């Protein structure tokens, strides 16, 4: 820093911090690159926020929207697409990783309705590192993020009626579980159902078999389908 001389006894610390540090993980670079094309979508999402002064009006509007949704839902099912739901796995976590379920070592202490997230750390080395909660077309979506050897995947459970898989998805069966699998760029996405809810696992993995192996694991019967 030219503006002020650095005292001699601070120099070693300053040099260390200025000339080195932790290497940026490749997985983070990929996640940031995926953000760029989503910039317009992120801006639209921000526009959904309502200033506090408009809250009463927003409440009335929300009631009208709810009424409209009820009316529309009589005409047929509506909901987010599977591709939209899979996008959640690429977002950053906003909450800390859930702890272990004290009652069952193969589960995490986080669930949506009756669907508990699996704990893959002991069996597969995939460790939960964060979580987030979203609403997707009015449906609640819970996501837990896992990492293993620099790779990151998101496991999302969406409330409501099961979503249809994209047409391009291939269907495979593992360990008695029907799984729909497709590629989204260099991300592998798998969809399946647990407890009548749609679950989606998406992320960058070395082998396309990894997601299948993970989602088909039943954790000695504790991971219920």
């Amino acid at each position, binding site marked *: *820093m030219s*503006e*002020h001389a*650095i005292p001699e*006894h*601070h120099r*070693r*610390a*300053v*040099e*260390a*911090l*200025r*000339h*080195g*540090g*932790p*290497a*940026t*993980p490749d*997985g*983070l*670079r*990929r*996640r*940031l*690159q995926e*953000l*760029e094309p*989503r*910039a317009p979508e*992120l*801006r639209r*999402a*921000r526009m959904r926020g309502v200033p506090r002064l408009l809250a009463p009006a927003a409440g009335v509007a929300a009631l009208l929207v709810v009424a409209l949704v009820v009316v529309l839902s009589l005409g047929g099912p509506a909901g987010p697409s599977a591709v939209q739901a899979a996008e959640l796995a690429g*977002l*950053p*976590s*906003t*909450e*800390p*990783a*859930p*702890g*272990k379920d004290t009652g069952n070592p193969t589960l995490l202490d986080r669930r949506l309705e009756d669907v508990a997230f699996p704990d893959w*750390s002991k069996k597969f080395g995939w*460790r*939960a*590192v*964060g979580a987030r909660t979203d609403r997707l077309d009015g449906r609640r979506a819970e996501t837990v993020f896992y*990492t293993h050897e*620099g790779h*990151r995947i998101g496991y999302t459970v969406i409330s409501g009626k099961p979503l249809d898989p994209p047409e391009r998805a291939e269907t495979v069966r593992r360990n008695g579980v029907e799984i729909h699998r497709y590629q989204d760029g260099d991300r592998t996405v798998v969809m399946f159902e647990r407890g009548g809810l749609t679950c989606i696992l998406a992320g960058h993995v070395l082998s396309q078999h990894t997601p299948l192996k993970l989602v088909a694991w039943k954790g000695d019967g504790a991971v219920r389908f």
Partner: protein
Amino acid sequence: MGTVGRVAERATHATGLGSRRLSVARLPDHTDRLFRAAYALCGSRADAEDLVQETFARVLERPRFIRRGSDLAYLMRVLRNTWVDFHRARNARPDTSGPPEAIDWVVDRGGDPGDVALDVQMAYDAMHDLSPPLREAIAAVDVLGLSYRDAAKALRIRQGTLMSRLSRARERIAAALEGGS
């Protein structure tokens, strides 16, 4: 640098007064520095990754006109605010820290790999024992490379306060390096 990094800068001269919109294309140029600053703040690789990603997402969802050369200062402000939000959310829930994470440490060109390499990791480790205000000061100036003026503005504190915090932070890290060598 990926495809984003190869995109030419699309600076928008909106006001003609030296301000421009922070271009998406410039963000990857700052990834390494920002990741180090994020790691310095939170001390966890997974949290630092989330912190940087959320920072970029916030920048993209709120396009701002900023002064030339102030990209990093603006990013530091958003990073710091995001960290405060993360910190609040984490305090509201039990700590579920897992096993130690594997970190690759690098020494930049210009740094002496022999002398600096060991110090780098020790310095970052020592940073985690600092209070958050001291960590913010040293992350802004010594990790991100901001001037005192820009760092003070990014952290919304007086320059004198920044210098005082920076000095105390450096003092403690220097002591840790002396004690460890």
